[in-house]
């Protein structure tokens, strides 16, 4: 290897400096915001009863971690989110392929899909409980219903934009519609499917929380509802003297949900950016072997 030139070295150190600056600023911003929150609460500039404060949330979390209850709730929510996410991806891709394969089917179903997608799913959730009972199943169905229709519409639009010449290529090589599907359509749509998955993780979590608001015995949504109900009950009884633990627990759940989901998504994103190309090729070649 040749020794890199001065200007190349300078460029690299400049890039590195820039990256570390960005990293430091990110952390500093978080610390600053937390400190500001804490300070305002301590000085009484905001009402710590309503807004809570970072130390209180941390204490509450420590307590719940101590008796293990927080992990149960996180685990349940995570499980429900992952199951519904998996279902959304499978149903979404399968339905989009079916719509792509049949022009008549897609034209017949299109207005229904648009309608179903714009339906307020949180309003549908109480009905689902009546229909399906008070199970985890209901929550998963609610979460799937939030994400699946939009997913089908996006994937179908993407599939329809596949390069027509590549389809002609497969046909000219004697391929059938099945070959077009496995050799061109799915592999060329891998980036689309991945970006659609990213959106779906978030939507599934929203759906799970909505479901847990209404019917659950455990999970973060259940915890939020529980806390806010106890809060409002005690609020009437004890006014401003409610124990700070409960108010904090409301906040900690919300914060934790967001943080948890972010972690998962961030991890996935990092994995992808490292191995995106490799991954999509492996994924693509797997598809082709089907």
């Amino acid at each position, binding site marked *: 290897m040749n020794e890199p030139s001065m200007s190349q070295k300078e460029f690299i150190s400049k890039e590195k400096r820039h990256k570390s600056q960005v990293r430091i600023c990110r952390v500093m911003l978080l610390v600053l915001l937390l400190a500001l929150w804490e300070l305002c609460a301590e000085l009484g500039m905001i009402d710590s009863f309503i807004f809570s404060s970072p130390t209180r949330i941390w204490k509450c979390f420590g307590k719940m971690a101590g008796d293990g209850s927080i992990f149960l709730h996180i685990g349940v929510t995570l499980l429900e989110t992952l199951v519904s996410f998996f279902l959304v991806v499978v149903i979404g891709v399968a339905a989009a392929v079916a719509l792509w394969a049949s022009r008549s089917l897609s034209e017949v179903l299109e207005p229904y899909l648009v309608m179903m997608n714009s339906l307020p799913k949180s309003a549908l959730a109480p009905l689902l409980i009546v229909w399906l009972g008070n199970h985890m199943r209901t929550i998963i169905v609610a979460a799937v219903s939030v994400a699946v229709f939009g997913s089908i519409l996006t994937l179908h639009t993407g599939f329809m934009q596949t390069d027509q010449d590549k389809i*002609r*290529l497969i046909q*000219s*090589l*004697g391929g059938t519609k099945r070959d077009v599907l496995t050799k061109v359509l799915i*592999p*060329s749509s891998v980036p689309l499917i991945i970006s659609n998955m990213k959106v779906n993780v978030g939507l599934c979590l929203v759906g799970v929380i909505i479901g847990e608001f209404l019917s659950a015995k455990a999970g973060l949504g259940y915890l939020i509802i529980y806390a806010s109900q106890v809060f409002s009950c005690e609020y009437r009884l004890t006014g401003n003297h409610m124990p700070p633990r409960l108010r904090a627990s409301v906040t900690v759940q919300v914060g934790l949900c967001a943080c948890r989901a972010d972690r998962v998504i961030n991890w996935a994103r990092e994995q992808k950016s490292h191995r995106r190309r490799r991954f999509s*090729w492996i994924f693509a070649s797997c598809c082709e072997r089907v």
Partner: protein
Amino acid sequence: MKTKLEVKGLCYSYHTMEGETQALLDISFDVKDGEFFVIVGPSGCGKSTLLSLLCGLMEPESGSILIDGAPGEPSRAAMGYMLQRDHLLEWRTIFSNISLGLEIQNRLDEKAEKELIHMLDTYGLSQFKDARPGQLSGGMRQRAALIRTLALKPDILLLDEPFSALDYQTRLEVCDDISTIIRTQKKTAVLITHDLSEAISVADRILVLSSRPGRVKNVIPVTFDPKYDRPLTRRNAPEFSAYFNQLWKELRDHE
């Protein structure tokens, strides 16, 4: 020489709700075995439509296409179609790109793989066997696309402006390259182009189409002194400009 491909009274129209567009009207010609047949015409004269019909991707409204005198729809196995762009699939290596056709037709066995590797050797791509298409230059990509087409051992090669996406210098080289390959393999080829000098430099005969609806205006035989056998040297031949002017006049001539 016997006739390889015979086209009789071919017509084709495109239909939309707004109306019908006649693309091809009563096209008839024949191509001899081992001949390099070139079709030129103004843009929008239905050149690509004609190739899609020959390849069997679309059904003609009327008329017939005979291969070796046999009627019925042209079988795709007999036709190798090379598109305007190389369309190598980015998620596959060069080797799995050139074996795509065999894979689709379930004909990829050890013997076929050996032949493909031999072809990569012959066309100077052996070191790129496991490379991704993005690592190849435009000319190499086009050669890989040609191997993909030749791998199916087609009787007739259909080339739809296969050099038009390349820059001028590469275009001359690849055109020289590919037409030499096709000639040494003694394949029958039908090339579609709008580039007149390209047509003259490779053709045995040139068919001139009129503007829409496409009709056969003329078929011009092209003969050069044997010492000008390659496309690049043909461009230096004294007859070249005479052919060019003749073609130019044919195309300009609006009836």
